[in-house]
């Protein structure tokens, strides 16, 4: 599940966290909300940011697993 969590402090400052994303797709997802709220103060990248998106191996198809050997 991909979600964006926004925590707005009692002083009105917003903290945006993306969840469930791998790689830089999270930045694209939250860009609209960031721009709508105001000025970016800081950004922190987490380990998930540097993960590659999961892809299905080409020898796995909808018809089932094909032993490559």
């Amino acid at each position, binding site marked *: 599940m991909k979600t*964006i969590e926004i925590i707005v402090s009692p002083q009105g400052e917003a*903290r*945006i966290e993306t969840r469930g994303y791998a790689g830089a797709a999270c930045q694209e997802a939250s860009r609209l909300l960031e721009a709508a709220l105001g000025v970016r103060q800081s950004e922190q990248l987490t380990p998930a940011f540097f993960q590659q998106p999961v892809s299905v191996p080409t020898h796995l198809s909808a018809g089932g697993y094909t032993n490559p050997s």
Partner: protein
Amino acid sequence: MSHIVTIQTEVRCRESVTAACRRLQLPPPTEGTHRLFTSEATGLAVTLPAWRYPVVCELPTGTLRYDHYGGRWGDPRQLDRFLQGYAVERATLVARRSGHAVHEEPIADGSIRLVVQMEGAA
């Protein structure tokens, strides 16, 4: 999570200002030129509880104009409360217009959490 961004709220959206006033049970904002002690400001004015002068939102620049005289003419926490309400309304409006469901809940420290569902939304 994959990245965390901190945003300083800027008040630029008329619709969200109106929604924040409604949320906080404040009078509707009024457009015009408003007196702030010896000066004047033009924009969308918000009347905060027990404040002598309004807070004037200059929407094109995101600037807030006000004079609470170091807190003697108005409690600064009321301004914080307005900014929080504005940010919540603004984020909710933008997310819903993009077709995403939004869940809102209060947190014990006074913050408000919004969770935007990026998949499976209408």
